């Protein structure tokens, strides 16, 4: 079945949705608003080229994603991941693991993952959970969250992500590791321990 576009409905159907997706990736309200606006305008101009192979929502989301990639490219903020990771390595590690001369980095008592309970899987089916998840993504440094989102929300292939963000494979893994550690501890603190 081929999908069709209904531009008159776009704003009503996908305006808030695209705004929230943009907020995950750029975190500033005004930038997110601008990106949504640009996306709708570009989509409208490109509507004749829509082949109907994907849903309207998927098509609009991919236009927004391209806008966001351009946005980061212009800012040049994806560059120097290497420098960023090296400069922050020590301070990041000591947030989670015991460190020091000759110390093997292991969890310390207050950072070690605690049991989320046997119902943890169900606790993510609640609407309220996704507000917390959104909060935790937005709290992450954007150098980490942009890669984390590309991998786990947009399900992009690792080699594509590395190209897009100009990352070596080992820097990619350091970013994923840090992002997961931050996300895990944020969710534990703000959701799983609160229930």
């Amino acid at each position, binding site marked *: 079945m081929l999908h069709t576009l209904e531009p008159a409905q776009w704003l009503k159907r996908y305006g808030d949705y695209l705004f*929230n997706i943009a907020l995950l990736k750029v975190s500033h309200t005004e930038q997110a608003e601008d990106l*949504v606006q640009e996306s709708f*305008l570009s989509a*409208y101009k490109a509507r004749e080229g829509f082949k109907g192979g994907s849903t309207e929502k998927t098509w609009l989301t991919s236009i927004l994603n391209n806008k966001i990639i351009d946005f980061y490219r212009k800012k040049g903020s994806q560059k120097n991941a290497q420098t960023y990771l090296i400069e922050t390595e020590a301070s990041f590690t000591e947030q989670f693991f015991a460190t020091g001369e000759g110390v093997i980095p292991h969890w310390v008592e207050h950072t070690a993952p605690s049991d989320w309970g046997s119902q943890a899987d169900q606790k*993510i089916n609640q*609407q309220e959970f996704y507000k917390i*998840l*959104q909060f935790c993504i937005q709290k992450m440094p954007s150098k980490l969250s942009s890669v984390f*989102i590309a991998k786990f929300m947009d399900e992009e292939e690792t080699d594509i992500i590395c190209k897009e963000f100009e990352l070596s494979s080992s820097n990619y893994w350091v970013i994923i590791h840090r992002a997961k550690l931050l996300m895990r501890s944020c969710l534990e603190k703000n959701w799983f321990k609160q229930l």
Partner: protein
Amino acid sequence: MAGKIQHIIHNCKEATHLSLQKEERALSIKETFQLRLHLMYCDACKQFIKQSAIINKAMLQIKDAILQHPPQKLSQEVKDNIQQQLNDLP
């Protein structure tokens, strides 16, 4: 050798790093041994692995959750502005 084993057993940073790679690629024999040995002694890292899978699942569902209940709304002013610009296009 004993020092090496001690190092593996206590290195949660390395174990969590390896466990995330395992989600995506087959670990080498050495890495597999290292991770298994670590997990025999470390419950916290076992929790980490379970929780990582829950987070991955949640991230796959977040778009749908946002579509159904967008936590933030565009202001009416911004909406009107976008609609106006769309109307002005040929």
